[in-house]
């Protein structure tokens, strides 16, 4: 006889913490608080921590629902959290986005300590970007603070925030690549091997990387050491003051970390190109003209570079600006942060190799293509790079754009004789042909109706405004 074990209706990424789970009913996300988390949850509310965190926009707000929507016997409360439009992952963030997320986590921890609570986990997946700023989204991360014990999530914080930032700072190994390989954090021993030798003389690196790497080497992961493991509650020898020293130290270290990014391929793209000023002005004029007749609330700028056109799109809609070049996206993020522009979200995504689905059953973290749907896709001076730089046949490109947009596509055609294309094919003996405006229109015509078409004055480049055909997918 087999016993029927119903699967909990939880979101595919919400299974690790037994305190509760996120689930979806009719397109709305809910969070169940389970009985085992009741006391911690009540303290979060009654201590005033929740009110303070949400007033300072550090934590996602929620409302309580009286009914048990999940039907789970463990049910204590059902919450309706504020719904998020787009979920992004740490391996899509640029250096400063990850750094801001790390500092945000520490700020939440600091405020929690003032209310006799502590964070029981410190994963970057608990952070999302909303209105340009990090936001803590996991209501179940707070637990009552036992001042005699150190921070339970210290190692997780180091492995998933500090180490990837260290690796970028000292080795120039992009945080995205590192975190996609180790989404649950890079072990200290791995980080120690990847960091350059000179780091051994940095006290911070020695304390947070080399020391744990040495200790980890002596104990098996998950087993815990014979000495120095977790003492019984209230029986530890730690103190709040000691924890605050560690916190201050982590904050000071994070504030000093930076990215160099001097070798970025696309840096100064517009400044360096001789087409520059006139071309840009004419293109902007046409771009605005095409944009004016459209109604759209969301846009995706593919190959956004310095975000010149993302800013223009941002005048009318909320914009997702993506580029494979992490340095460009970092510069864009910093610029937006300084100017306090809230509706443009930069992400490090390579459109030829978009973020895959990862985690358990490949369902825990959705792929870029699953998550992103916009009303307008913009691809300026991009298609020729995909065809000649990345060897994508022209026929394969429109289908993907049609998948991402629900309405429109604004795309630029750069002809074969264009200086930029000539640069791309100079050292290539083989590339995909045919490639001309006629063939370009035929390929895109399979999925889109061409609405407007204009040559950018002074060049042979053509700007198209296309509308997705309902039957195209």
């Amino acid at each position: 006889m087999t016993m029927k074990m119903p699967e909990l209706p939880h979101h595919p990424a919400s299974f690790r913490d037994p305190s509760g789970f996120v689930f979806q009913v009719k397109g709305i996300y809910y969070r169940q608080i389970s009985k085992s988390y009741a006391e911690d949850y009540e303290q979060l509310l009654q201590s005033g921590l929740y009110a303070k965190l949400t007033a300072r926009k550090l934590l996602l707000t929620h409302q309580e629902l009286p009914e048990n929507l999940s039907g789970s016997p463990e049910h204590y409360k059902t919450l309706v959290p504020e719904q998020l439009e787009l979920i992004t992952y740490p391996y899509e963030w640029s250096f400063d986005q990850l750094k801001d997320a790390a500092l945000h986590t520490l700020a939440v921890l600091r405020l929690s300590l003032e209310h006799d609570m502590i964070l029981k986990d410190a994963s970057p997946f608990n952070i999302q970007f909303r209105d340009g700023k990090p936001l803590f989204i996991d209501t179940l991360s707070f637990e009552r603070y036992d001042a005699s014990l150190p921070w339970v999530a210290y190692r997780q914080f180091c492995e998933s925030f500090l180490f990837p930032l260290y690796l970028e700072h000292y080795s120039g190994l992009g945080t995205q690549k590192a975190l996609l390989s180790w989404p649950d954090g890079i072990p200290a021993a791995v980080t120690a091997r990847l960091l350059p030798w000179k780091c051994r003389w940095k006290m911070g690196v020695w304390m947070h990387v080399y020391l744990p790497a040495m200790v980890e080497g002596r104990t098996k992961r998950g087993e815990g050491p014979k000495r120095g493991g977790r003492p019984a509650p209230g029986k530890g020898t730690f103190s709040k003051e000691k924890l605050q020293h560690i916190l201050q130290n982590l904050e000071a270290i994070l504030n000093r970390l930076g990215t160099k990014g001097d070798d970025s391929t696309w840096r100064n793209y517009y400044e360096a190109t001789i087409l520059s000023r006139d071309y840009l002005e004419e293109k902007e004029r046409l771009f605005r003209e095409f944009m004016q007749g459209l109604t759209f609330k969301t846009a995706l700028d593919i190959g956004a570079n310095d975000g010149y056109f993302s800013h223009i799109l941002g005048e009318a809609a909320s914009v997702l600006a993506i580029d494979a070049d992490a340095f460009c996206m970092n510069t864009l993020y910093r610029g937006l942060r300084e100017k306090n522009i809230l509706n443009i979200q930069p992400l490090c995504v390579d459109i030829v190799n978009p973020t895959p689905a990862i985690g358990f059953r490949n369902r825990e973290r959705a792929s870029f293509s699953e998550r992103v749907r916009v009303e307008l896709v913009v691809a300026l001076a991009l298609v020729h790079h995909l065809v000649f730089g990345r060897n994508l046949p022209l026929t394969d490109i429109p289908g993907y754009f049609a998948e991402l947009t629900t309405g429109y596509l604004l795309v630029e055609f750069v002809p074969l004789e264009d200086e930029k294309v000539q640069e791309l094919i100079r050292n290539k003996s083989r590339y995909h042909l045919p490639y001309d405006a006629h063939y370009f229109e035929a390929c895109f015509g399979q999925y889109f109706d061409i609405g407007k078409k204009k040559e950018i004055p002074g060049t042979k480049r053509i700007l198209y405004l296309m509308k997705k055909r309902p039957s195209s997918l």
Partner: protein
Amino acid sequence: MKVVFLYIDPGSGSYLIQVIIAAVLGALFYFKNLWWKFRSFFSRKKQEPPKNDNENA
């Protein structure tokens, strides 16, 4: 008995490491303060005590 749900693994010496780090930082803070007191004793200007920001990245 209080049930503690630990779904992230705190073992492998993470506690031991924090104890060591806190000791190092505590000692640094102590000597920084001592140095500041020593300096302010010899200078006439009254200064604010330093904050404990160990800037050793």
